[in-house]
């Protein structure tokens, strides 16, 4: 009898094991989306402990389009990708940029927003006059041009401490292009490097321009300004997209379709106006 039970259990396990991949590819009815909840205005936690922001609005909109029930959870930034692959949730919407390195471990949907990074400094600091303010440097473009744009900035930043959030493209940018002139200080969240910038422990911050622009409109940041060019391309990748497991092709298709539709009917632009006070179509 015992052997029979064991045998049937094993058989059942074998059958379910062979069935799982096929089952995973059927259309899901409920998914869990993870965000960071600490990256205003993209995704943040309100004083009441609720998640809010552009990506929360967008996630709800996309879920309605895909006709799936969504649960949105918060997860520390540096644990997002490992937790996705450990199947703790099914998708990441945390202002995550598509980069080669990330593509090696997870998949991405169509991007829903372009990315650009900028430098924030104190207005009173000499760094406020960084050259190239108002221009855009495409790091993926002509290397000679990139060097010409970066050299004067590197010279001015010599010996300064610049804060970034750890494990972001902003850190990658500093380490690739300005490592020799600045001291990179890495923070767990952007809120922390902003606090330290205000406290004067660091001379500047490199973060996504959309996020910095939103900060600068707050009363606490009256003394700060963006300085130097806007950086796009190369380490800043191909835009912000939904992070997905590589084998979840059905979910990717669903997200792709929903994002393209949200772009086409102006939903994403409307959300950008609401949260970022700018248009995302540039």
């Amino acid at each position, binding site marked *: 009898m015992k052997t029979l039970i064991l045998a049937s259990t094993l058989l059942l396990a074998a059958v379910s094991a062979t069935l799982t991949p096929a089952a995973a590819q059927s259309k899901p009815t409920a998914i869990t989306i993870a965000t960071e909840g600490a990256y205003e205005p993209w995704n943040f936690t309100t004083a009441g402990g609720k998640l809010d922001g552009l990506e929360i609005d967008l996630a709800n909109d996309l879920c309605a389009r895909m006709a799936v029930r969504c649960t949105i959870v918060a997860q520390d930034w540096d644990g997002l990708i490992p937790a996705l692959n450990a199947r703790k949730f099914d998708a990441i919407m945390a202002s995550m940029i598509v980069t080669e390195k990330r593509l090696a471990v997870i998949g991405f949907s169509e991007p829903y927003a372009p990315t650009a990074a900028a430098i924030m400094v104190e207005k009173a600091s000499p760094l406020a006059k960084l050259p190239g303010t108002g221009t855009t440097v495409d790091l993926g473009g002509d290397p000679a041009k990139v060097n010409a744009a970066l050299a004067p900035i590197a010279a001015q930043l010599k010996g300064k401490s610049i804060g970034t959030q750890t494990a972001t493209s902003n850190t990658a940018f500093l380490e690739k292009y300005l490592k020799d002139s600045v001291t990179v200080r890495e*923070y767990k969240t952007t809120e922390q490097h902003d606090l330290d910038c205000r406290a004067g422990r660091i001379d500047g911050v490199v973060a996504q321009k959309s996020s910095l622009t939103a900060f600068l409109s707050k009363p606490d940041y009256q003394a700060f300004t963006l300085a130097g060019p806007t950086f796009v391309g190369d380490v800043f990748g191909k835009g912000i997209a939904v992070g997905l497991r590589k084998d979840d092709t059905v979910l990717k298709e669903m997200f792709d379709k929903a994002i393209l539709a949200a772009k086409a009917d102006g939903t994403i632009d409307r959300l950008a106006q609401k949260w970022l006070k700018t248009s995302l179509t540039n």
Partner: protein
Amino acid sequence: MDLSFMQATLLTLLGGLPLTLQLTASSVLLGGAGALALALMRTSGVAVLSLPARAYVFVFRGTPLLIQLFMIYYGLGQFRPALQELGLWSFFRDPYSCAVLAMAMNTAAYASEIIRGGVASVPPGALEAASACGMRPLMRLRRIVLPLAIRQALPAYGNELVLMAKATSLASTITLMEVTGLAGKMIAQTYRAVEIFACAGLIYLALTFVLTRVVLLLEWWLSPRRPRLQPARPRIRTTGEPA
């Protein structure tokens, strides 16, 4: 298991070991001095001294070290103008000194209770004997109470040392790239959490192994039953014997 990757990881993480060791050593030394002072205040029997010590231990033992660290680093960071006026800003601007301060204050609270336990274990007879020999309180403290108390407290204090060595990993939250900070950074770059944390764990394991051995050695050295060098034989002068 990718051995060459593990090896490269270990080498990178070992780069953070000096900072981990520095943080541990400075906070344990400072905290140890604070602990001794607190324990003496607490056992002094004078209310003006013992009450503040009690309050201090209550607060620092009752709140998480991470919160203390954040309060000192990010919290005090918001009072830059006031701190600058007091000339303290250069201290609080530096994440290293903030980390050492937080950890030293934390361990001082715990260790003071450990030392207090040691002091309480000194047999009253020994104290009476010391007084009977004419020792004044300070001399009694130095010669009788502290040696006995410290020996008694050492095993528990060894525990606290190990806890502090591991608590240095919190310093990564205020941008200090010690072993855990480097591990977090490497994981962010490679997404190989298991291998990298395993390597970091190995480094802490080796560190605490050495620490516990050192404490054991110290215990053995302070033990009254330790086999000592042959004590000098007392010379007894007997009369009537040729010199």
